[in-house]
């Protein structure tokens, strides 16, 4: 019966992990904004004020499964999308034409474009980071067949986020094993990036998102958020934790106590302003966005305010461009049950004035734009949300939220099994299986015998030898080994344990030639 329960649980888990959160990315210069939900990539051209129709020159197929990562290059010329269909697609953002489709061996969990647009890196579910050269710019690079090369890896862990540092010298990668790795990017990265600059260690659960931030002309810092519901500020060059902000402190006040009880306040995404003074934080149970003041001189993170949204709107992804002071937020999930694929549920909201106003303080609270106030209005919402009336479907949003929570949990949180459960599982292993009926009885009999034998030998050694049919012998021996791990040495010829006439009795026969 326990076995059945275990299987059931596994099935539920497998299914739930398939929900992928909707993603949003704003063009760094504010030319366009992209939303990914499920296999669908929706782009809106903000300069032209119209939805973009994507074209594909790469000869590869279009996305057929959930997109897990999207990213613009630093100058906005390139855009990359990748996901569960093992495709990495690179787009030119002027024409929104796909110029390259790369096939990965495994599902892709993160993607990034180097600052000069020369390389696209992506990370697969096994924690391996791959690199592809874009265009012809790498003249002195050795000729390649343009296949991705693996440049480094996190040992069998899911990489959740990958970013290039503002100066282009480092790649930062975060994983579900609580780690952030800062790797030096060598001049010839096709040979691999083997030199680790530092590890940023401090998170006590998975790291879900990382972002570089810097003062203009100043040194840069790394921000990270994770399943331990903290936002952390790092001196990533030295791997030093500078400050930790525990979002639970504030969110606890805002939410109903029952909502915080499940302690699921994982940080879903973070997005710093381009002057480094603020960071927006999306939290898994919070309807709204938390703004933290980020003092890079004093190296402190402090609570500023929470911009609340309607009850069911809990953003899954955040983005802002360097030029405009809009914070784009999106909520949604792929593979929702009872949902036509043509109607992938997404909701978009924009928070204006996403910058720190030193004078305004708290009296100038930026509010979320109403749908009517959104730039380009319904046109944009229709293009990016796929539909206009999603706002009314509260229960849909609620189910999205629930699905995402489960999926994030299943994929990233380490499972903790009780000692008892682990023992049970061990017993259930195929190679140790034995008929239930005889099993317990045999075990306890042997225990009894063991004690007698202990006295007999005045030593805690018990060597037993089962005499029964060869098959039975084999299986029972195994069972003893398991149950009396560390004590029994079955198969030793010095003594024997006889089975009497009926199946359930055992007799212990010390060998006459026994060492005592």
């Amino acid at each position, binding site marked *: 019966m326990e076995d059945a329960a275990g299987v059931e649980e596994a099935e539920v888990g497998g299914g739930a992990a398939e929900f992928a959160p909707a993603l949003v990315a704003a063009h760094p210069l504010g030319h366009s904004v992209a939303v990914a939900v499920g296999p669908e990539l929706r782009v809106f051209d903000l300069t032209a004020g119209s939805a973009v129709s994507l074209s594909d020159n790469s000869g590869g197929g279009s996305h057929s499964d959930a997109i897990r990562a999207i990213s613009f290059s630093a100058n906005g010329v390139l855009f990359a999308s990748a996901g569960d269909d093992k495709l990495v697609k690179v787009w030119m953002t002027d024409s929104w034409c796909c110029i390259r489709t790369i096939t990965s061996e495994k599902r892709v969990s993160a993607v990034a474009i180097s600052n000069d647009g020369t390389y696209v890196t992506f990370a697969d579910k096994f924690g391996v980071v791959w690199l592809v050269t874009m265009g012809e710019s790498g003249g002195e690079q050795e000729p390649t067949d343009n296949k991705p090369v693996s440049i480094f890896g996190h040992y069998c862990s899911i990489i959740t986020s990958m970013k290039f540092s503002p100066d282009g010298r480092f790649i930062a990668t975060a994983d579900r094993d609580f*780690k952030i790795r800062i790797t030096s990017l060598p001049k010839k990265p096709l040979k691999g990036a083997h030199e680790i600059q530092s590890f940023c260690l401090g998170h006590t659960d998975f790291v879900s998102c990382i972002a570089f931030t810097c003062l203009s002309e100043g040194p840069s810092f790394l921000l990270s958020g994770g399943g331990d519901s903290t936002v952390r500020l790092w001196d990533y060059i030295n791997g030093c934790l500078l400050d930790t902000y525990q979002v639970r402190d504030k969110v606890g006040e805002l939410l109903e106590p029952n909502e915080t009880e499940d302690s699921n306040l994982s940080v879903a995404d973070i997005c710093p302003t381009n002057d480094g003074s603020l960071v927006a934080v999306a939290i898994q149970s919070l309807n709204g966005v938390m703004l933290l003041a980020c003092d890079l001189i004093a190296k402190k993170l402090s609570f500023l305010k929470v911009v609340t949204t309607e009850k069911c709107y809990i953003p899954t992804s955040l983005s802002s461009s360097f030029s405009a002071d809009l914070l784009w937020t999106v909520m949604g999930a792929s593979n929702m049950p009872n949902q036509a694929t043509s109607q992938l549920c997404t909701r978009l909201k924009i928070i204006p004035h996403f910058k720190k106003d030193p004078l305004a303080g708290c009296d100038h609270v930026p509010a979320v734009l109403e749908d009517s106030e959104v730039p380009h209005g319904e046109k944009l919402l229709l293009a990016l949300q796929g539909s206009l009336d999603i706002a009314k479907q509260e229960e849909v949003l609620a189910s999205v939220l629930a699905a995402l929570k489960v999926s994030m949990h299943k994929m990233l949180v380490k499972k903790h*099994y009780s000692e008892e459960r682990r023992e049970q599982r061990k017993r259930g292993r195929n190679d140790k299986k034995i008929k239930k009926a005889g099993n317990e009885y045999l075990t306890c009999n042997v225990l009894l015998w063991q004690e007698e034998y202990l006295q007999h030998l005045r030593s805690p050694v018990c060597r037993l030898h089962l005499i029964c049919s060869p098959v039975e012998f084999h299986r029972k021996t195994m069972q003893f*080994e398991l*149950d*009396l791990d560390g*004590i029994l040495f079955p198969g030793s010829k010095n003594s024997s344990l006889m089975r009497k006439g009926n199946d359930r009795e055992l007799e212990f026969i010390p060998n006459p030639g026994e060492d005592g």
Partner: protein
Amino acid sequence: MTSGDGSNGGGAGGQGKLPRKRFYRARAHSNPLSDSHFPIPISPDEVDLSQHYPRYFPSGEGEGCQGDAAVPRIRFADVGCGFGGLLVGLSTLFPDTLMIGMELRDKVTEYVKERILALRASNPGKYDNISVVRTNSMKYIPNYFRKAQLLKMFFLFPDPHFKEKNHRRRVISMQLLDEYAYVMEVGGIIYTITDVEELGEWMRSCLEKHPLFEAIPEEEIKADPVVKLLSTATEEGQKVARNGGQTFQAIFRRISLQE
């Protein structure tokens, strides 16, 4: 229930009696890919050295004074230390160097723990510089050691994992060498040995390909007193020697990156 009895029986070595291996029956392998359920320090700052080396860190003051250059640090790591033969051998050879064995199998770790305690009890003033920790070194090396902390790392007779699909379980790989290079000081030495020719070639080729390691000249290897221990100090080594088997070493130095 029963296993508790077992380790108590074996743990009787607390008064200086060496533990007996038969009480620490363990499996030959443990899956390095599975999620671990034992405690892992979040960062090297959280490694409590006073627990491991009480004589060097009396009354637990080891935690407070990080960054102090005078505070001794772990310098040698024996990855997959097994029953700890090498540690015991090295302990007297480098009596002032802190060293740690890392082992994934819990029973084996228990055994080494008892063995060290017994050695300390029966040889006062000796064996205070070695300890063991149960961990998955393939996943958690950076949680234990800071950048450039280690002078020597040992990989003796690791699991060969013959199947190609299991090669990622090998403890030496290009990926993992990045991490080993990170925790090793420039000039530090990595020692590997195996009795499996295929694995020996694999380890050597990984180290040769890796830009942060270079081969150590033969005469230098001969002069290194540690090298002799590789094949003689450990159980596996002795077993191989007994059976007249061949061993394959690869000994490389951590260098700084040349671009």
